[in-house]
C-alpha cells in the first residue's frame, strides 16, 4: 500500500474528543498569538491514543519511576502535547492562555525543567531518539518494564543524528523503544518529497533493525490496535509510521505549508478555528 492510500481527505469527521483537544491547541495559539499550528494538528490522534489508552503514567507524580516515557522529539508540535497534558491534569489548562508569554510555563518548545510531564527539552531536531534509547537502556538495566515512545517529525528525520540513533537502537535490540514518525509529508518549505525525499521510509527503518508498522495517524482504532501490540518483535525496537495530514481539522491549514507556523494570529482567525472545531 502506498502512503497516499492512507491519507484522508479534508472534511473527514473528527469525533468530539479529537475536536476538544484541537480546541485546546487553539486556546494555546490564542494565548501566544502564534504557534506551530499545522505541526500540532497532525499529532493529535497519536498523542490522544497514547495518553488515553497506552501509556502508564500518573499526572500527580510525573516522575514516577515506573511510568512509560513519551518524548516529543518534534518539539515544535508542543501545543498538541500541552493540550493532552493539560487534559490529563498535569497542569491547569489555563496555562495555555500564557503560551509563549514572558512568565508563562509553556514555551514555543517544551522544557523538561518547566513543564510537568515533559520528558525532554526538545525543539532542536534530531535529539529525542538518542535520549529515548538512553532511557530505554536504563529501563533494561533496572529491570523495569517501562517503555519509551519517541515521536519525530518527517522533516526532523532529515537529521543525521536520527539515523545514528536508529543504528544504535537496532544494535541493542531495544524492544522497549518505539519510534513514531508523524509523516504529514510537509516540512517547513514544501513537501518532504521535494525538499528531502524520505522514501522508501518503512524500508529504511527496517534496514536499521526496527520492526515497522504503517498506520493512518488520524484513525484512532488503527492507532490503538497497533500501539497495543508493541513490541511487534520481542528482539527489535518498533517503528510506527503514522500517515497524517498537516493542519488536520482546519480546512485552510490542511496540507498548507503556510500554516506550518503562524504568528500574529488574530481574533477572527481564532473564532473561525473554534467554529470549525465545534
Amino acid at each position, binding site marked *: 500500500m502506498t502512503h497516499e492510500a492512507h491519507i484522508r481527505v479534508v472534511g473527514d469527521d473528527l469525533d468530539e474528543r479529537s475536536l476538544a483537544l484541537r480546541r485546546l491547541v487553539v486556546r494555546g495559539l490564542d494565548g501566544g498569538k502564534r504557534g506551530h499550528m499545522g505541526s500540532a494538528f497532525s499529532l493529535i490522534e497519536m498523542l490522544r491514543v497514547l495518553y488515553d489508552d497506552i501509556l502508564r503514567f500518573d499526572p500527580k507524580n510525573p516522575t514516577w519511576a515506573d511510568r512509560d516515557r513519551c518524548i516529543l522529539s518534534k518539539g515544535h508540535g508542543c501545543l498538541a502535547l500541552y493540550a493532552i497534558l493539560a487534559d490529563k491534569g498535569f497542569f491547569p489548562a489555563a496555562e495555555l492562555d500564557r503560551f509563549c508569554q514572558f512568565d508563562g510555563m509553556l514555551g514555543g518548545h517544551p522544557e523538561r525543567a518547566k513543564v510537568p510531564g515533559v*520528558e525532554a*527539552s526538545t525543539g532542536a531536531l534530531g535529539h529525542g531518539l538518542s*535520549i529515548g534509547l*538512553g*532511557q530505554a537502556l*536504563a529501563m533494561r538495566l533496572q529491570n523495569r518494564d517501562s517503555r519509551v515512545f519517541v515521536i519525530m517529525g518527517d522533516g526532523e528525520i532529515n537529521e543525521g*543524528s536520527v539515523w*545514528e*540513533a536508529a543504528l*544504535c537502537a537496532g544494535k541493542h535490540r531495544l524492544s522497549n523503544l518505539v519510534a513514531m514518525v508523524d509523516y504529514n509529508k510537509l516540512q517547513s518549505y514544501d513537501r518532504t518529497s521535494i525538499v528531502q525525499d524520505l522514501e522508501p521510509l518503512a524500508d529504511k527503518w527496517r534496514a536499521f533493525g526496527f520492526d515497522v508498522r504503517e498506520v493512518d495517524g488520524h484513525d484512532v482504532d488503527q492507532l490503538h490496535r497497533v500501539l497495543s501490540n508493541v513490541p511487534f518483535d520481542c528482539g527489535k525496537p518498533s517503528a510506527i509510521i503514522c500517515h497524517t495530514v498537516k493542519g488536520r481539522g482546519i480546512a485552510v491549514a490542511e496540507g498548507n505549508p503556510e500554516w506550518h507556523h503562524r504568528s500574529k494570529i488574530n481574533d477572527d482567525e481564532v473564532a473561525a478555528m473554534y467554529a470549525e472545531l465545534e
Partner: protein
Amino acid sequence: MRKTSLDCVYELARRDPRVVFIGSDLGAGTLDSFKEEMPERFFMEGVTEQNIIGMAAGLAMEGYIPYVNTIATFITRRCFEQVAVDLCLHNLPVRLIGNGGGLVYAPLGPTHLAIEDISIMRSLPNMTVVAPVDKEEMARFVPQTLDMPGPVYIRLAKGGDPIVSRAENGFTVGKAILMRDPGDILLVSTGVMTNRALDAAAALEATGGLRCGVLHMHTVKPLDDAALLDLAGKVRGIVTVEEHTLVGGLGSAVNDLLGDRLGRRAPPVLRLGIPDRFPDKYGTQDDLLGYYGLQPDAIANSVREFASVHLR
C-alpha cells in the same frame, strides 16, 4: 593521563552501580577489564558522537552517571548542540573525557586538534571545565566527579607528562593551586602548560632574578575568582599561558574577570596562546608548542619583554 582517567572510571564503576562508560570507536583493548566485569554498563557505540551524547543524557535522566570518552575535538565540536541541549540545558551528570586536548594530535593536522575546546565548553551554562596537569592530579580529581551535579568536560593531555602536582596541594574542583609564590609577576596556566610555566618561572628567576608565581587554574570553569582577585592585588603583571586559541580560553576568562571586577585597577595582562588561525604545521605537540612560543624558553622571553614594559 588518559589511562589514569579511565582506570579511575573503572574503579568508580566497581564501587558505584550508577557509573556507566560510553566510548565511540576507541582503541582495541580500551577498558577490557571494565567490559569483562561489568559488561552491562560498558558501551562502545561507534562513530556516532551526537547519538552518544543523547544516549548519555537519557541514561543520566534515569539515575546513571555516564563517563563518555572520545577524541576531544569530536566530543566538543562534532556534537556541540547535543552537549548544549541534552547535557547542559537538562543539567545532567555526564562526564566528557576528551583525548588529546590542545596540540597533542599535531601530526594528524587541524581536523584532530582541540584548540578551542575550552572556549566552546566554557560558553555553556552548567558546564564545568577541568584540565589537570598530570596523571597524579587526574587521579585526585576523577573520583570527585562522581557526585558533581552537572556536566563536566575533562581535557586530557598526551600522556607521559612530567609530574609536577603535589599530593599535599590536594585537589578541589574550582579551586586554583598556587604552585609557586609570586613576586612581581603571576603566571596563570591550565593543563600541562602549568609544567611549562613552572619551568619558565624557574628559568626567569635563575637567569635574571625575575620572580614569577604560578597559579595552576586546573578548573577553567568555574574560574577561581577569589584566588585570582587576591593575587591580582599583589602583583604588577599577569601572564596567562594556555595550549589553546586566544579566543575565549583561559586568558579571556582571566581578562574578563579582572576587567569586570577591577577595571583600571587590574594589573596589565599578557595572554600567551595559539593565534586565531588554523595550525599550518605538523610534527609533534612539542614542535607546535615551540612554533607558537609556548615552550618554557619562549614563555620566559615573553615574560621578560612584558616585564620590561610594565615593571619599569
